[in-house]
């Protein structure tokens, strides 16, 4: 007997149910299909190609009018369903009721609208159906600026489509990298790079505060009060199951409509399928599980046993030219190991996640040809132990060649600058090698490359090897650590010449072998990036050793020491009183006068740090950076103020220098001193920079040491005025910041590059001016008190939770 089957929603899931039913038994059901949209089933996945103009709507229609007619489906399109009455088994359409024997709820999902002011303005649209797509196409015809809120699959497809149609597009994404649910940071970085190449601006860690506009959307306001002008705002932050009808009909609804593995709801005659359901705590947004559900539901209705099983799904982004693949679970979990492959020259990144002897996840970017093979290994839970060594090379692994440590240098464009001192680019060097300069000395002699400071020597040697192959015997240079094949000098030069401005850029472009470096290379990379790109890159506390992250020195018992700054060693009664009060209040066990003319409070508990800082801040005291690879102290004598031998105001100069230099990050710690006469009471001749005042002016010495090594400073220059002494000091420190290896004190760096080279560079007035300006630019960001900033986030210094209380219950 034919039963009456009513279906609410003509989407891809219910479409597949109808197909399966009419294929198996066309006479089993008399089907009525409601759809709120004034059209039948089309392939929603292909809306992105419609948006970008690669396809027309007609090409993505799955079921046309003729198909519905041929299969005796009564279509009630453009007619919303008002309610379901499960007791009398009737669906109430806007134009009249229909009785059912079996009912399928396939209401799909609704776009999630973030609840910000202005969300309802005209010009704010979502990206869900053909009407949204047409609205975007229409809006883009006028050109102008579009802001897409949401950097997930849908948002990026919308952004790429709008950019393709000529709009100036910015993507605003809340998380740290794009598509964070499908991609890891490295793949997210590559995706971002490719999207930026096609002119799309990407803003990560950006939170939308409001949409502004008078009568229509005109701008998006971000947290932090930046406004992005926008003629069109697309909200693509996510979807939620559309469950309103089901809820009103009294069905069990959690996040989605609760169903059994047979797709049955809490009412035995009502079924649900697609994005509106929740099964085993999960929601579904990709098409593969939807089709599985549709098949199961059709079988259930035809009374043949079947059950829905949740399977892993793979994701691909439908943006031409952005080749990415992600499958399985690559994020969470203990007992897991990574295999990472990067080929910077081709922009390829692959990461496999292995648990035990099985592959559980795969992320790929740039070359996804093997994606389905890996996906099959994940689905089949294949034992991969035997092919583990070569697994990452894919099914053709027998022919796979190992990754080339020289590929980063080989991938450099011909115009990439190798030798910064002499402005020599890669092509010049390669040409010289091809013309017979077959060793380092010959290259130096013919091109001048690496003939000055010598920090590019490693790169020149790699070019020799790339160009000459086995004819060149590479001297063994010490790489930074096991994560890469580069020396510190190579890394610094490549960060500059390749304009690498983020950690992810370094990991990818320079072929890092680990996911995000280690405790040896990451602090160095962090420093090089912030020193070379002060505006684009910000210091990453998670790449700093504990002292610099906590802004205090950790002691052997896990407590910390706190040292407020005393400019040039000068203090006063009010500051001393505040320090004494703090010592009392926080039970500081030891108070010590340091060698750098200030006071150390030793034995402060980590949890108390933000509070003691706040108290010291109130008295005008700021961090002394006694913990940092940065400016420590400027030691002074009393100079002409009090001393009968003083020749200049050494205290005043010391204070000025300290106020200019404080807060800056340097490769290692930097200590200065200024003595008022050659008797040198401030011991300036063993400092990184030491100035001795004389009657005729100032003797600036550099590269002294008084630690593991003891070394007298070498004279950089004698200058007549205080302003010049400051200029030369700042320029020297900036040159050190731009060129030295991380954790080399100035005396070690000067020993490598030679004092003559330093003098040559700094004696050029224009270069000195550039160095001072570059230092000032960096200081516009870093010359501030970290204590004041951290005191405001005191909670981060406390334990996250206290479970000892639970134990007591």
């Amino acid at each position, binding site marked *: 007997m034919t039963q009456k089957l009513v279906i609410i929603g003509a989407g891809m899931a219910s479409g597949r149910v109808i197909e399966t039913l009419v294929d198996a038994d066309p006479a089993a059901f008399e089907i009525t299909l409601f759809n709120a949209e004034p059209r039948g089933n089309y392939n929603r996945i292909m809306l992105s190609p419609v948006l970008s103009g690669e396809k027309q709507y007609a090409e993505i229609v799955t079921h046309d009018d003729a198909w519905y007619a041929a299969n005796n489906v009564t279509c009630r399109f453009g007619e919303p369903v008002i309610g379901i009455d499960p007791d009398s088994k009737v669906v109430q359409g806007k134009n009249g009721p229909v009785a059912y024997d079996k009912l399928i709820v396939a209401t799909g999902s609704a776009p999630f609208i973030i609840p910000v002011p202005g969300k309802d303005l005209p010009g704010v649209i979502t990206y869900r159906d053909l009407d949204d797509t047409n609205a975007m196409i229409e809006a883009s015809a006028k050109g102008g600026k579009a802001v897409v809120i949401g950097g997930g699959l849908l948002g990026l497809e919308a952004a790429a489509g709008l950019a393709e149609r000529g709009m100036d597009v910015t993507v605003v994404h809340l998380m*740290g990298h794009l598509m964070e649910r499908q991609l890891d940071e490295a793949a997210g970085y590559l995706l971002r790079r490719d999207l930026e190449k096609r002119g799309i601006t990407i803003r990560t860690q950006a939170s939308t505060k409001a949409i502004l506009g008078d009568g229509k959307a005109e701008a998006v306001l971000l947290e932090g009060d930046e406004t992005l002008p926008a003629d069109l705002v697309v909200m693509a932050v996510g979807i939620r199951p559309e469950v309103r009808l089901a809820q009103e009909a009294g069905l069990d609804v959690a996040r989605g409509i609760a169903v059994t593995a047979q797709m049955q709801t809490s009412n035995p005659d009502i079924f649900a399928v697609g994005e509106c359901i929740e099964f085993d705590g999960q929601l579904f947004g990709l098409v593969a599980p939807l089709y599985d559900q549709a098949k199961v539901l059709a079988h259930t209705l035809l009374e043949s046993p079947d059950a829905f099983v949740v399977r892993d799904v793979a994701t691909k982004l439908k943006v031409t030219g952005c080749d990415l693949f992600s499958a399985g679970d690559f994020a969470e979990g203990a007992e897991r190991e*990574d295999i990472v492959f990067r080929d910077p020259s081709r922009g390829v990144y692959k990461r496999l996640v292995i648990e035990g002897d099985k592959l559980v996840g795969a992320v790929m970017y740039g070359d996804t040809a093997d994606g389905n093979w890996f996906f099959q290994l994940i689905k089949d839970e294949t034992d991969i132990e035997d092919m583990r060594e070569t697994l990452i090379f894919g099914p053709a692994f027998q022919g796979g060649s190992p990754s080339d440590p020289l590929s980063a240098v080989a991938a450099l464009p011909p115009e990439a600058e190798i030798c910064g001192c002499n402005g020599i680019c890669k092509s010049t060097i390669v040409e010289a090698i091809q013309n017979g300069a077959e060793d380092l000395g010959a290259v130096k002699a013919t091109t001048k490359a690496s003939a000055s400071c010598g920090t590019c020597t490693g790169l020149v040697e790699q070019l020799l090897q790339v160009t000459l192959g086995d004819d060149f015997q590479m001297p063994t240079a010490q790489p930074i650590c096991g994560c890469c094949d580069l020396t510190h000098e190579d890394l610094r030069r490549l960060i500059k010449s390749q304009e690498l401005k983020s950690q992810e850029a370094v990991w990818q472009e320079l072929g890092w072998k680990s996911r995000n470096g*280690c405790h040896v290379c990451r602090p160095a990379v962090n420093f090089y990036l912030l020193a070379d790109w002060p505006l684009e890159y910000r210091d990453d506390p*998670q790449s700093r050793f504990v002292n610099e992250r906590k802004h205090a020195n950790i002691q052997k018992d*896990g407590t910390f020491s706190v040292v407020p700054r005393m400019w040039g060693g000068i203090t006063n009664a009010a500051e001393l009183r505040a320090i004494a009060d703090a010592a009392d209040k926080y039970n500081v066990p030891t108070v010590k006068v340091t060698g750098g003319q200030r006071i150390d409070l030793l034995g402060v508990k980590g949890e108390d740090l933000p509070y003691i800082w706040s108290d010291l801040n109130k008295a005008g005291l700021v961090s002394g950076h006694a913990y940092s690879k940065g400016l420590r102290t400027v030691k002074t004598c009393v100079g002409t103020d009090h001393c009968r031998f003083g020749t200049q105001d050494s205290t005043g100069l010391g204070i000025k220098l300290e106020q200019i230099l404080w807060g800056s990050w340097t490769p290692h710690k930097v200590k200065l001193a200024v003595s008022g006469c050659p008797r040198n009471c401030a011991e300036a001749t063993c400092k990184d920079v030491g100035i001795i005042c004389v009657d005729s002016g100032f003797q600036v010495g550099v590269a002294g040491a008084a630690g593991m090594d003891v070394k007298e400073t070498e004279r950089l220059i004698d200058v007549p005025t205080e302003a010049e002494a400051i200029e030369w000091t700042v320029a020297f420190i900036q040159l050190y910041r731009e060129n030295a290896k991380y954790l080399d004190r100035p005396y070690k760096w000067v020993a490598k590059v030679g004092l003559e080279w330093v003098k040559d560079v700094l004696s050029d007035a224009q270069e000195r001016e550039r160095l001072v300006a570059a230092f000032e630019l960096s200081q516009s960001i870093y010359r501030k008190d970290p204590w004041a900033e951290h005191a405001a986030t005191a909670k981060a210094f406390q334990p996250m939770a206290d479970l000892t209380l639970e134990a007591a219950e």
Partner: protein
Amino acid sequence: MSWIDVGSIEEIPLRGARKVKTALGCVALFRTADAEVFAATDRCPHKGGPLSEGIVHGQSVTCPLHNWIFDLNTGQAQGETATIATFPVRVEAGRILIDGSQLTARSAA
């Protein structure tokens, strides 16, 4: 297992750590990726360094005192015969859940 909610994953900086006080001493929670968290004892077996203050890289942490490196999956120290205790932890809807049955060893029990 008894899962205890100890806070939001957003409270731990990416590639950073926070600690939780327990009856067995402090336990460090390490956030190694956007949604990847490990739990291990906060004390280095070498000289007692607070591991939650170390640099987190890959699925490892380096002790801030003397650079011992621990694999957070197994607790094994690299190149040493020492290990640290690790604890079951999972992330659900942005919340960190830690297995309380191992951590709230009651004195009454």
